[in-house]
């Protein structure tokens, strides 16, 4: 059991435990906070995979923006500060069954694959992933088109979200 393996096991168990708490806890603000713990665990997994840019962007985008958006949404859509009773709907056992079947199916599908127990190759020290990522996202022979389309998608989502959630009664009245 090398140090890396122990680290991975601890982080993975923490991430999965937090994810279970996200989907089972009754208090929604607690669920959002457990989501933050899960996202942080995933950021550590990215760091273990030597994807340092992805790890930092995960913390900035997911924890710094999306999780806070969730907390705001939870606070804005509750009628009082107490819990709202049981949070699982009446067919939850079917959802659990489907989840277990999905996991089992994926596991058995991948086990027969030849690359299952592959170990990681050593990254050559001259390889700078951030540099390569930047080149790939902006070069015409790389992935600049998906990059630009994603930015158009973000602008559309921004405009759409502001328009959908706009409350005309409390709009700007300083005309």
């Amino acid at each position, binding site marked *: 059991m090398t140090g890396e393996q122990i680290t991975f096991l601890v982080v993975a168990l923490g991430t999965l435990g937090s*994810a279970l708490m*996200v*989907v089972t806890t009754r208090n929604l603000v607690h669920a959002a906070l457990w989501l933050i713990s899960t996202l942080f665990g995933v950021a550590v*997994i990215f760091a273990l995979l030597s994807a340092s840019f992805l790890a930092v962007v995960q913390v900035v985008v*997911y924890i710094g923006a999306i999780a806070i958006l969730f907390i705001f949404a939870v606070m804005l859509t509750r009628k009082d500060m107490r819990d709202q009773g049981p949070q699982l709907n009446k067919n939850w056992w079917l*959802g659990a069954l489907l*989840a277990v079947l999905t996991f089992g199916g994926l596991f058995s599908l991948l086990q027969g694959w030849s690359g299952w127990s592959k170990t990681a*190759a050593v990254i050559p020290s001259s390889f700078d992933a951030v540099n390569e990522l930047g080149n790939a996202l902006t070069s015409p022979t790389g992935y600049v088109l998906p990059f630009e389309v994603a930015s158009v998608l973000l602008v559309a989502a921004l405009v759409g979200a502001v328009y959908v959630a706009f409350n005309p009664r409390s709009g700007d009245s300083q005309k």
Partner: protein
Amino acid sequence: MIPLSWYLILSAALFSIGLFGVLSRRNAVAILLGIELMLNSVNVNLAAFWRYGDVTNIAGQVFAVIVFAVAAAEVSVGLALVISVYRRRNTVIADELDLMKW
């Protein structure tokens, strides 16, 4: 060291937990939380395959970055819709949002 199977098992488990959250929760915001878990598991999968395949083929990380952007867009629009629905119907329980049912 760490075989690829461990990362794939982690991402499959995270995906299944997210799926359970989406299918079994009453609150619409909680369903969106489950969707976030599924998107994160996909990202872990992509990063693992990037690392354990050809590291110089940066497409894995590019795909993960695009997934970040798409997830952010989807969460913002989804939560805007949930807030707007809450303002009109004063509820976010998914079962009670059934105005279009016959």
